[in-house]
């Protein structure tokens, strides 16, 4: 039975592109973080697809490495988001960028 490897890779690209789109377009920091999660997830998918293609488990092992990176990244990202919210009372990145430090 042929696994839908190619299709999986294409799917991961699509998800990755949507993630990128989200990061670039959205102005709320939470959305940006989420989109980064999407990209991470797409990358993981690609890993698994690759391992399926080459028949070795390395790819899947790598997916397991992707997870902690994503987890750590979110942890810190959200912490920063909290602080930004605390300091600027808004999560809108454009507003934050414009208020130059006195």
């Amino acid at each position: 039975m042929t696994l839908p490897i190619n299709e999986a890779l294409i799917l991961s690209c699509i998800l990755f592109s949507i993630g990128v789109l989200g990061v670039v377009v959205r102005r709320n920091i939470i959305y940006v973080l989420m989109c980064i999660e999407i990209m991470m997830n797409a990358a993981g998918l690609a890993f698994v697809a690759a391992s399926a293609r080459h028949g070795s488990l390395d790819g899947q092992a790598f997916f397991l490495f992707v997870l902690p990176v994503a987890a750590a990244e979110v942890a810190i990202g959200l912490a920063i988001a909290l602080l930004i919210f605390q300091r600027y009372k808004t999560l809108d990145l454009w507003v934050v960028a414009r208020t130059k430090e006195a």
Partner: protein
Amino acid sequence: MAQNILFYLAAVMAVATTSMVVITRNAVYAVLYLIMSLFAVALVFLSLNAPFLALVEIIVYAGAIMVLFLFVVMMLNLQGQRGDEATKRPTRRQMIVPGALALLLLILIVVSLSAGTPAATNAALSDPKLLGELLFTKHYLGVKLSGIILLIGTIGGLHIGRGGSIPSTMEKPIDDVTH
């Protein structure tokens, strides 16, 4: 054959939910859509003969990370009030350039993949014992490193989240050097 149907189903679901994440105005909806997208990806893992990873994804990704997201969203009560600039849906105009770039990226990757060699058939079943063995022999270093990354994540989160005020973002840049 069954995998393919499952795969296509999951794929459509994944794409739909992720795009909804990007589009929705309400933060909570976005998180939920993201969770559904993770489920879809888990299904894809199943279709790729990696049941262990599918479960891991659901437990770790959906379970832990998304819960954290949900927690933060709830805390900051981003209910997507009307008129709040932060959650406003990006306008059409803003979408054009990034959209084009994302599309271009997609096409490029697809083009490069299609030139690839035909798929191998004998997909190895992702057996947790084999995987565990592999992890602690060949990728032992990787495991250690991800352990460290997690440690960094926790410390970082703690330190920053401690509420200590971030020093003003940037010290006044050295004034203009010339007279």
